[in-house]
């Protein structure tokens, strides 16, 4: 680990005032940042500890939604009775991620900003455009079993590894931030992440020193069925190869509404309105589910060892839709 200076932020205002200086990083649970610092993939010169800021409550808003403080640990969020009752897909996604110990430390904000698990990103002996811009991508022609089939570029094919973020995308969450100049903004989760394009090292629209203070969940969808299905190499304590988060309402046999998001497939929690359009307003059937899978995977591209993800995503989506609709 490279040497750094450490300070504990006394307030969110103090944190953002410090956070914009070059070489500065916030540390919350530290479960991703310290892992990467040990390997010198992240080499901050200064850590601003935000873990004690009073952003650790889950509050009901007047409009009927929930506001989750950025420092609420993943375990507390998963076990919150209001989350279980109204946003079950979020509890399920959190519980499917990491381990009991990690969830106790991992924060809501840190989870959203965790970095890819691409093997070459982790291997400082290998070229990687995300870690060392311009050095090349070892994964495209290398071993890419866990990497992306959607939204890739010729510079990077990494996936975003979070389970929680996939559920948040299906729930249309909003990320609330405070910028270095003190200004606040609200970012729809669909706008938080950026595709790799030519700059895979830039992963989100956040500015240097911009602090996530909260995540807002909108009013829950009434009468919805929730599902988080995660396919992985072992039954627990493994990242997703493919995952599906779904929130669906039915009107008799017809799909009245659907929100579907996907993990393990792209550089961000993936959502595509064409997938939902293929089933909404139609009787739930394997034919419309197949059309949804066609829509999801129309532009999918495998890179060899991850080719299997395309049929796996198709089958996982169809199985998820059968479960969500009861067909």
């Amino acid at each position, binding site marked *: 680990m490279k040497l750094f200076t*450490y300070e504990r932020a006394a307030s969110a205002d103090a944190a953002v005032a410090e956070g914009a200086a070059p070489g500065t990083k916030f540390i919350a649970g530290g*479960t991703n940042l310290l892992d990467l610092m040990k390997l010198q993939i992240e080499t901050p010169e200064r850590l601003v500890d935000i873990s004690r800021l009073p952003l650790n409550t889950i509050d009901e808003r007047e409009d009927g939604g929930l506001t989750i403080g950025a420092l609420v640990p993943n375990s507390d969020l998963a076990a919150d009775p209001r989350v279980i009752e109204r946003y079950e897909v979020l509890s*399920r996604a959190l519980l499917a991620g990491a381990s*009991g*110990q990690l969830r106790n*430390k991992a924060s809501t904000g840190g989870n959203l900003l965790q970095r890819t698990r691409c093997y070459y990103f982790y291997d400082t002996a290998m070229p990687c455009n995300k870690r060392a811009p311009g050095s090349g991508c070892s994964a495209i022609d290398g071993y890419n079993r866990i990497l992306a089939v959607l939204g890739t570029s010729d510079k990077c094919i990494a996936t975003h590894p979070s389970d929680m973020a996939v559920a948040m995308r299906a729930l249309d969450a909003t990320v609330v931030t405070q910028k270095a100049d003190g200004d606040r903004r609200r970012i729809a989760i669909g706008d938080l992440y950026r595709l790799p394009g030519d700059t895979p090292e830039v992963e989100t629209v956040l500015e240097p020193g911009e602090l996530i203070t909260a995540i807002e969940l909108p009013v829950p969808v009434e009468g919805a069925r929730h599902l988080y299905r995660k396919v992985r190499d072992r039954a627990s304590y493994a990242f997703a190869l493919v995952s599906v988060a779904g929130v669906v309402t039915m009107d008799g046999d017809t799909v009245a509404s659907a929100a579907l998001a996907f993990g393990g497939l792209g550089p961000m929690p993936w959502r595509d309105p064409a997938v939902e359009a293929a089933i909404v307003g139609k009787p739930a059937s394997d034919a419309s589910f197949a059309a949804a899978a066609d829509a999801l995977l129309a532009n999918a591209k495998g890179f060899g060892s991850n080719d299997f993800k395309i049929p796996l995503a198709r089958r996982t989506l169809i199985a998820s839709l059968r479960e969500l609709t009861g067909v």
Partner: protein
Amino acid sequence: MKWTINGRSYEAEVDVRTTLLDLAREHLGLTGSKKGCDHGQCGACTMLVGGRRINACLSLAVMHQDDEIVTIEGLGQPGNLHPLQDAFVRHDGYQCGYCTPGQICSAVGMLDEVKKGWPSHVSADLTEVALDDAEIGERMSGNLCRCAAYPNIVDAIREVAGVDDREPVLETAREIGA
């Protein structure tokens, strides 16, 4: 810097990069917690911080100066074993023993989570928590055992959790000289 570990105050000057795990092992002589992977992947370093189980290898010591920290040494000592330590001995819940301190600290934290009604990935109903072998396996998945003592680890935890209706293997650990 100052810490409270197992109810005792400690003071040491350490590099800011020192993890809670290295602090305990290298600076304070508390070598019960083990380093398996140093990357959050094995659970050998599990400690209880503020009553919650965490991976001490992914925690900076400097960040935990105000917390109540408990390591395996604080749970019980020879002659005064914690019920889980006692059960691990009687059920042979280890072979080499390297993962054991982490397993036991993790199990203490895990049983507390069950008491609080926290569900798990395998809970069919997230509002009703009942501990069975599948639940124990899922909830303990953050602790790897290279010797694969898993069946006996589950036996030990099941007994202490009070969800075991089978006869205890041995009355107490002392009977086999532990």
